[in-house]
């Protein structure tokens, strides 16, 4: 297997210090030339190809499969079914980590959802494996599938990853009954599937007692530990190579059964095995955003100030496992009110287990809450932006804690100015364009928390004065190869071209989880600390060396810059890293760092990123066809490490918001529970022509509390706010309130 080669130096554009600069992508050259290696691009010698066979019913049993025919097909190496399922060290239903979910490894003949693995075929070629999979021709005994919201709800254990199902403050009943006016809004969101362009793929090879995996993961350390637990291995013997992910969006963090099967096949067959899921297999086995039905009751006083926010979510989860989309969380974090309740219950459908998908909870919750806010603004006779300002949360709406920073007011103001919000008619259906299209403007508030998950990094100065950072860094497109190098360079007082990042492999220090928009903050802090630790040691050496110009400075009174240490109070005293190391007889000098939230930080402050999204839509009055014609997002997310990557993340998030509003949603057959649109032909995501020119503004925000870097996170917030802004713009254009996503054309006509 090829080693993961270190990346070449970034395209050299140097402008001052490193962080904060719009550096081009470090991995760009590999990507534009087709040489960036994704999991499925690996092809070790002797490799066999596996094809996963998935259930074509949503509930029932597999009664028969023609294993003999499949085995007899030329080129077939082995066929795995529950009858010859390889044994695991743990029960298939075990959950070795906090993020683990029940998964399927052919434990029995039960079918729990469409797309569940029911067999694995391994052959010499992909063509042979595909043909043998067809020959298996599974027979089923299907039962009536449970589909939709109208089933008995139950009280889940927790929401999202461990949140309580209900949080509240104040007297909701009083807040509603004493309100000058109340509104009630019900909004449904559909099941959505991550559909990263790279389908889940793995190449598994056992070599010299170790397991080598080429597979995309958002959390190399956690994934390695998970695979090790299921397979009964020492985690150190599992090496995951994941330098590039073709998108993840939350779907590539937890171990899935299909991968365990491929790994076991590789062991039993004593040869490397590749398994890449087909696109249609991305609808079921590898998580999704669960459907929600949200009921939002708002009470207001005569001035349109909220007296109560009562946000209840019924979330669809799997019949056999729980993940509750924490949509009501939006009520806890967006607007101020004396009484707030955010509650959830669940209904069980015969679907694959839901999970975290870009802005889990917040995306769905904000899509509904922002409509509710507009309904309330209309009831209060207020401009939607004015309504939001009147209900501005100066402190955390639920906990009352001060924000570590919050420049949302500036986001509203700058976004409105850029968009040209002033002069917007209050009533709907007032604006048309030359072609007779109905024009509408809408706004949505964006917010997303700033979690930190814990990460580690090692920095090493080399004899020539350059440095290498080692951490199991992954890049799923957000630009971490680039941004982390910028942080590293600053922490080491080097130019970014002098810093090599060695990452993408799990046997390096644990890079934590690229998720929750917390990667740059967490891993960045680990790298910053590792660099700082290295420089401290270097200063120590110099300070204690009588031959150094820095002798006696002590390690706190030096500055690292441009590959030299300077005495803080006398810059004429300085020495290069290379000289210090040479005199000390050191080939290298390493420091280590961790990144995590400070233990008590969360007791003192609330940490949220914020933003305001403004949308213009044009609606065809006779066809109901909607075009998003303009989108402006203004975001305050702490310190920006690389404006170019950040803009891409934010505008990409906003286009996800368009997709949420207008396109995406799995359609379930109510009788069979099968998904009717399991391909890119019919599961619509925005295409190039659907995307308008997107304007992203980043509002400067200094944050001394969120973490020492002042970095908040931008990966997910762009999705929040946007869907609601579009729904509200559609109301403004047509007078029609959207009650479910994606917005269907026929709902916008008077039929």
């Amino acid at each position, binding site marked *: 297997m090829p080693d993961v080669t270190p990346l070449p130096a970034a395209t050299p554009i140097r402008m001052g210090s490193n962080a904060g600069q719009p550096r*081009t992508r470090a991995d760009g050259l590999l990507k534009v*030339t087709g*040489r960036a290696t994704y999991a499925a691009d690996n092809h070790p010698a002797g490799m066999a190809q596996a094809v996963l066979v998935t259930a074509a019913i949503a509930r029932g049993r597999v009664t028969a499969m023609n294993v003999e025919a499949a085995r007899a097909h*030329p080129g077939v190496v082995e066929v795995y079914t529950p009858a010859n399922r390889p044994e695991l060290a743990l029960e298939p239903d075990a959950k070795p980590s906090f993020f683990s979910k029940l998964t399927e490894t052919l434990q029995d003949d039960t079918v729990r959802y469409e797309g569940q693995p029911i067999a694995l075929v391994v052959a010499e070629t992909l063509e042979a494996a595909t043909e043998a999979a067809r020959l298996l021709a599974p027979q089923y005994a299907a039962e009536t599938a449970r589909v939709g919201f109208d089933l008995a709800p139950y009280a889940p254990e927790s929401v999202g990853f461990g949140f309580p199902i209900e949080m509240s403050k104040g007297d909701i009943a009083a807040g509603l009954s004493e309100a000058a006016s109340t509104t009630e809004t019900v909004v449904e969101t559909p099941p959505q599937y991550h*559909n990263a362009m790279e389908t889940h793929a793995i190449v598994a090879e056992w070599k010299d007692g170790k397991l080598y995996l080429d597979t995309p993961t958002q959390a190399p350390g956690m994934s390695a530990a998970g695979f090790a637990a299921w397979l009964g291995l020492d985690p150190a013997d599992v090496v995951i190579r994941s330098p590039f992910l073709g*998108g993840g969006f939350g779907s590539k963090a937890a171990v899935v059964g299909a991968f365990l099967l491929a790994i076991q096949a590789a062991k039993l067959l004593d040869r490397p095995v590749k398994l*890449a899921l087909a696109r249609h297999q991305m609808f079921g086995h590898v998580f999704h955003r669960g459907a929600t039905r949200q009921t939002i009751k708002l009470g207001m006083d005569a001035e349109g100030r909220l007296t109560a926010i009562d946000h209840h979510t019924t979330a669809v989860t799997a019949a056999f496992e729980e993940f509750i989309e924490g949509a009501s969380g939006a009520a806890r974090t967006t607007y101020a009110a004396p009484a707030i309740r955010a509650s959830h219950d669940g209904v069980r459908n015969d679907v694959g287990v839901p999970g975290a998908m870009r802005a889990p909870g917040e995306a769905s919750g904000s899509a509904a809450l922002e409509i509710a806010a507009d309904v309330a603004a209309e009831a209060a006779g207020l401009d939607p932006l004015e309504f939001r300002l009147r209900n501005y949360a100066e402190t955390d709406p639920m906990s009352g804690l001060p924000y570590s920073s919050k420049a949302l007011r500036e986001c509203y103001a700058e976004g409105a100015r850029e968009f040209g919000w002033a002069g917007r008619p209050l009533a709907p259906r007032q604006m048309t364009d030359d072609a007779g299209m109905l024009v509408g403007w809408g706004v949505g508030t964006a917010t997303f928390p700033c979690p930190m998950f814990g990460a580690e990094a090692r920095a090493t100065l080399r004899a020539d004065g350059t440095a290498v950072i080692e951490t199991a860094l992954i890049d799923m497109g957000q630009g971490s190869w680039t941004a982390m190098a910028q942080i590293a360079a600053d922490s080491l007082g080097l130019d970014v071209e002098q810093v090599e990042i060695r990452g993408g492999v799990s046997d390096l220090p644990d890079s934590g989880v690229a998720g929750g928009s917390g990667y740059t903050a967490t891993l960045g802090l680990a790298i910053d600390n590792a660099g700082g630790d290295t420089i401290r040691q270097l200063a120590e050496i110099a300070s204690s060396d009588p031959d150094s110009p820095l002798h006696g400075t002590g390690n706190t009174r030096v500055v690292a810059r441009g590959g030299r240490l300077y005495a803080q109070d006398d810059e004429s005293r300085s020495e290069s890293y290379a000289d210090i190391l040479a005199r000390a007889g050191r080939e290298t000098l390493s420091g280590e760092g961790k990144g995590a939230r400070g233990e008590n930080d969360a007791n003192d402050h609330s940490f949220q990123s914020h933003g305001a999204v403004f949308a213009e839509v044009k609606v065809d009055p006779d066809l109901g066809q909607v075009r998003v014609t303009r989108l402006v997002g203004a975001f305050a997310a702490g310190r920006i490490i690389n404006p170019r990557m950040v803009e891409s993340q934010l505008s*990409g998030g906003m*286009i996800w918001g368009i997709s949420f509003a207008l396109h995406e949603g799995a359609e379930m057959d109510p009788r069979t529970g099968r998904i009717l649109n399991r391909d890119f032909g019919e599961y619509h*995501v925005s295409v190039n022509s659907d995307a308008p020119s997107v304007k992203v503004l980043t509002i400067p925000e200094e944050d001394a509390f969120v973490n020492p870097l002042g970095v908040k996170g931008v990966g997910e917030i762009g999705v929040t706010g946007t869907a609601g802004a579009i729904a509200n713009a559609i109301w403004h254009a047509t007078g029609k309130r959207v009650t479910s996503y994606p917005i269907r054309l026929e709902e916008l006509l008077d039929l």
Partner: protein
Amino acid sequence: MKSIPVSTTVNGDAVDFVCAPGETLLDALRNRLSLTGAKEGCGTGDCGACSVTLNGRLVCSCLVLAAEAEGAEVGTVEGMADHDKLHVLQQSFLDHAALQCGICTPGILVASKALLEENPEPTDEEVRYWLAGNLCRCTGYDKIVRAVQDAAAKMRSA
């Protein structure tokens, strides 16, 4: 199942290989010729990640059989740069940050090249229309359009 010998030209180089009847051009490029720039995003012609040119025609290589490449000229992303010198489009995509995860990028570059060969001065609308068949889930569409337009301008003045 009979194997089919194929003689073709890939990125200007004569290539011979043997394939199965049902093998797609995409799989042959990736598995037999180690040209893994073209990706399988869907296998149904809906995403464009596998875009290559076949005798100058932009196609989804997942919908073309490898055997169809007999006597044809195939162009992939690996053939865009002239050794170390990037194609104008490749450089423009770097400069405009028109890529994120990068897995759709090879297909988009090949499609963009085919567009500019047919229409050296497209409007934004024409770029968006032409690239509608190339999905980007990171959704950097706006930057892609800007990168293509900038490259087109550079190529016109070259």
